[in-house]
């Protein structure tokens, strides 16, 4: 059984990633279950998707400290959701913070959130941490709109899921509209074979 939390900020494409992971796992014959954040929180809010791969699970929400994998498209959100991660779970996080819609992150009046503090916290508290450069991923993706699929390509290539890049590619062909497909496939393959 593989429990995976996918998190980030509304608009980063988290729901698409969770659907692709779920669909690829289902095509491999695994049971899939989960839940998504939909509605008001999508407008620049913190977004969390739960994806549970394997048979015999009933709850759509992953119990705390039960996730095997935490995928974070934003480092503050990785910290916010770390309580879901197992003791020996693995975190893949992009390194670039996303500012809130109301104030810059460094505004001292708003607490002056330092991303270095959050990244330091992740380094001290996660035994298996893969911090990924947003800039290099955006470069490999050739389009900032496809950073999410490039990120997925990177993670899948690490072999943490019971499926491979070709399985994700099939899921993408079935779900992504024609005009965005090629861009996303290219981003995915940036890390594929």
């Amino acid at each position: 059984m593989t429990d995976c939390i996918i998190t980030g900020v509304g608009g980063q494409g988290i729901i698409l990633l969770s659907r692709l992971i779920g669909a690829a796992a289902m095509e491999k014959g695994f049971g899939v279950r989960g839940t998504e954040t939909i509605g008001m929180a999508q407008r620049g809010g913190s977004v969390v998707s739960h994806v549970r791969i394997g048979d015999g699970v009933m709850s759509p929400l992953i119990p705390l400290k039960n996730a095997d994998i935490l995928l974070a498209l934003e480092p503050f959100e990785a910290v916010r959701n770390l309580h879901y991660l197992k003791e020996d779970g693995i975190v893949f996080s992009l390194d670039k913070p996303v500012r809130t819609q109301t104030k810059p992150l460094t505004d001292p009046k708003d607490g002056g959130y330092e991303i270095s503090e959050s990244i330091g916290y992740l380094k001290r508290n996660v035994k298996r941490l893969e911090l990924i450069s947003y800039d290099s991923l955006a470069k490999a993706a050739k389009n900032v709109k496809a950073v999410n699929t490039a990120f997925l390509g990177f993670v899948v290539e690490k072999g943490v899921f019971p499926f491979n890049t070709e399985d994700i590619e099939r899921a993408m062909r079935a779900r992504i509209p024609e005009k965005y497909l090629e861009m996303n496939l290219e981003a995915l393959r940036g890390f594929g074979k």
Partner: protein
Amino acid sequence: MEKKLLMGNEAIALGALRAGVSVITGYPGTPSSEILETAAKHNSKGAYVEWSVNEKAAMEVAAGASYAGARTMVTMKQVGLNVASDPLMSLNYVGIKGGMVIVCADDPGPISSQTEQDTRHYGEFSKIAVFDPSSPEEAYLMIADAFEFSEKYGRPVVFRPTTRVCHGVAAIEILPDLSVKPPDGFFKDGGKWVIFPKLAYENHLIIERQSEEMSLDLSNYNRNVVTGFGKKGIVSGGVSYAYTLEALRLSAEKNGAIPPHKLFKVSSYPFPEKLALSFLENLDEVLVIEELDPVIENALLRICGKYGIKVKICGKSDKSIPRAGENTVEIASRSIAAFLNIKTNENATRGESPPILPTRAPVLCAGCPHNASFTAVKEAVRRYAQNRKVVYSGDIGCYTLGNTLDMVDTCLCMGAGITVAQGINRVEPDTLNFAFIGDSTFFHTGIPGIINAVYSGSNIIVVILDNSTTAMTGGQPHPGTGKNASGGEAKKIDIFEVLSAIGVTDIVRVNPYDKASADEAVSRMIEKKGVRVILFEAPCIKMKG
């Protein structure tokens, strides 16, 4: 068999289409909106799909179609059922012909609602059966049961998923369509469809008799189940049943084994009393794990009193389960551990507490026309309404987020901004009362409030934020958009003309991005008295791309 990865709402729509639904109506509202959207998209057999003007209209259209023999479904969120409660209460007395399922999504938390009301009470109140699915795949199958049950008794049925079922995702096996007889049309049947005191009394007797039959019927329903043995019993329903199973599995892993216990899954109202009696047999204590109100718990307490059964019932009444907010596996685990006297399965938390993180409160999107409208009003008030008390009444929609701009002082329910403003102005006539309302909400329940203001000679400024869509719930069409639920052309109803027709004489139509004109429009309306309307028109920024 084909498997599909479906969201609960998609599963409900496909399950209903599989069960031969041919008329589907609804009004958008999180977490219910995707049901009707999915039905419109996958409508291969030509079902009629409609976004209605509000929930009351939706339910009545569905009722009429059901009178004519069609299987019908009407969808809404829990507070929408308040709007449709008038037809709901009478409809059960009149009855239906084609199976009619009222899908009403509850929102524990609440995650995106005004209340944590429990629709199962509407089942008891209106004496209508309620089906309560615990997962997307159960919802897919159960909706067909609901149609069959409705036709069997000639009564509407409520189908009540909650947010984690609606927005939960699961791999679901798609089954072949069921064969359903086509609608045979409306028959007058000697006044059967005309609610009248005499008929109401006669039908009330039938409904009470049927409630007992339904309870017996549902004691044999394969989704109400009793398993296990022992002196202690756990009862659950809805998504809390999933949390309960998960908590029991994790506890068994942690403790090696857990003490014997009975488990009772309840998926319906009327309460399956006969099955409950067999469950209660030889038990000392019961723990009820459910979300929102203690509906199952109260039914068990009633049965214990009725039959003189000496069993202790724990749950919300003794605070074993929180009375507000959504349940989780952790809540189920903790209450089960205390109840069965075992270790909880919770792992220790990390020693180092995380740094303080930026809060990401939802705000209006960058470039949202509501921002421009709010700013125009705020600026004009600052310049032209000095020394006057100003109160901003808000309403339900994206523009409730105007609270971040200090532009929402009241918000009650759909359409209430306009009428609440009138009430405040009656007490403080010198106050400048603004009432903001969106275009979809204007059509939903805004119009009667404006008629009330004109008729009563009120002194308010109504600000209509027309962005040509129902933005908050994902961009559904409404009577002002000229589109229907299937994306086809529809008669476009002009808001300005409606306002003129209902007697508003001071109306100004302006683009909020045109700062000078917007400022001039607001200042002019501040000067005037009576019912004034500023109609801000600019399309939603999300709909452009």
